[in-house]
């Protein structure tokens, strides 16, 4: 629960807990896919390191050995040595090929009833849709994916503009999002926690700032979160928040962003209905605090140059009201 209420703190805690390996690391397996990959990674690395070491040792021996006259059977011996080494190479790579094939098969085994989530890449943010499975309405959010722990998940990946690549290294390997093609990714998140991912295919000016969070929760918490997300935005409490909503609706903000339950129904930018429930804003650039929201609205092009959010001129009190209202959208 705490993780959900205090996301920025949670992020920091997460970052410090995992220490150097980071919270976006291929060697910090928290999912079925990445665990299988890690299980493949270490033996392969060890085997290849040994091969390298062996070659280096032989090379060193070749350089350092005492020089004697070349024996008569040198050519024969060399030939045997070279062919034996080549045969060994063939063996090693055959084993590795088979191992990697088995891992691929293991990873992509599909379950009967996965949780389906649609993720669509935009320059430079992620749209996340939980399709309407039981008539209670679809949930659209951005830059943060909540998952139940232990359940198989299928992400349906698509792109709205250029090629992006979905990568949360602690969960599983990456998969490209390609215009005109449908890709998917299947995995099980195995431990609760917050994981970070980021776009892995170069996608333009702000490729560096296209991150997302994966929030892995116990199933009950996940269901509660999903139910909360289905709700419309709560009506503003107090005059300042009311002002904030009005300004948001009347100024260009509402032309791009949707906040369900208000007149803001834009389709271009991320859905902000439960904006403040997310851990970060602007696809992982800033922590979700009221101050950061104000800073972002005040000058998005300095914080994330080239992104598609324009600098909307607002008076200081307007800015305060809008950011307060946005910070109240939980």
């Amino acid at each position: 629960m705490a993780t959900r209420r205090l996301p920025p703190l949670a992020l920091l805690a997460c970052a410090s807990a995992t220490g150097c390996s980071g919270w976006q690391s291929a060697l910090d397996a928290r999912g079925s896919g990445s665990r299988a990959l890690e299980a493949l990674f270490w033996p392969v690395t060890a085997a290849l390191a040994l091969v390298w070491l062996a070659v280096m040792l032989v090379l060193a021996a070749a350089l350092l050995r005492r020089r004697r006259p070349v024996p008569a059977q040198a050519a024969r011996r060399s030939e045997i040595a070279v062919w034996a080494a080549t045969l060994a190479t063939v063996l090693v790579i055959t084993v590795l090929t088979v191992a990697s094939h088995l891992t691929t098969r293991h990873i992509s085994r599909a379950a009967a009833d996965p949780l389906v989530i649609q993720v669509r890449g935009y320059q430079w943010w992620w749209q996340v849709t939980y399709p309407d499975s039981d008539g209670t309405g679809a949930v659209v959010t951005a830059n943060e994916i909540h998952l139940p722990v232990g359940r198989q998940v299928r992400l349906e990946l698509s792109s709205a503009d250029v090629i992006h690549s979905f990568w949360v290294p602690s969960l599983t390997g990456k998969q490209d999002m390609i215009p005109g093609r449908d890709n998917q990714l299947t995995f099980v998140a195995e431990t609760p926690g917050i994981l970070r991912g980021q776009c892995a295919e170069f996608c333009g000016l702000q490729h560096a700032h296209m991150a997302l969070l994966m929030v892995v929760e116990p199933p009950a918490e996940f269901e509660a979160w999903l139910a909360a997300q289905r709700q419309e935005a709560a009506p503003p409490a107090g005059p300042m928040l009311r002002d904030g909503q009005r300004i948001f609706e009347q100024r260009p903000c509402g032309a791009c962003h949707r906040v369900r339950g208000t007149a803001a129904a834009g389709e271009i930018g991320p859905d902000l209905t439960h904006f403040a429930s997310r851990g970060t804003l602007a696809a992982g650039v800033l922590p979700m605090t009221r101050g950061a929201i104000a800073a972002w609205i005040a000058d998005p092009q300095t914080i994330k140059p080239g992104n598609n959010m324009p600098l909307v001129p607002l008076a200081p009190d307007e800015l305060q009201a809008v950011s307060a209202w946005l910070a109240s959208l939980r």
Partner: protein
Amino acid sequence: MRLGVRIKLGARRMAILTSAVLALAACEREERSTRVDPPVAAALDAVAVMPNGIGGRPPEVHAALGKPYRSNAYQLSQGKQLYEWFGCQSCHADGQGGSGPSLIDGWWEYGPDLVSIYVSIRDGRPHGMPSFRNRLTNDQIWQLAGYIQVLGAYSADTAAPSRSDRPQTRPAENRAPATMAPH
């Protein structure tokens, strides 16, 4: 050999000179300025419009910026994006017109100059053209206006964006003349 070096140096100097000459033209077209200072953005709104709402004088700051909205490839491509994002197609299609007038037939009800297009978008026009003043920022309206002017131009513009990555309904923007019939 020494002469060769001297020629190399000469060639380099010439390259630098040519670069300097080309630099102005190229920079203007290729620069990607993503941020407009708020005072500049505010000044961009200071157009003087003729009383009949047709034609007028662009704000001084527009010239001072080097008229980027008509000649800068990045600004034009942003305008193209806004054209799609803000639903211009619902009335103007891809420029051929629908319930709204065509933008590529060479006929401009309010004149072909940038200021008129800017004012049309900003303030709206009678018979259904809505005002976008509260939906776009000033520089976005300029981007859109610049793109629309290029769309309707009679000669292909080297800075113009080309076709879109979606089903085509008319030739690409850079295939002039604009009035060419769709096929």
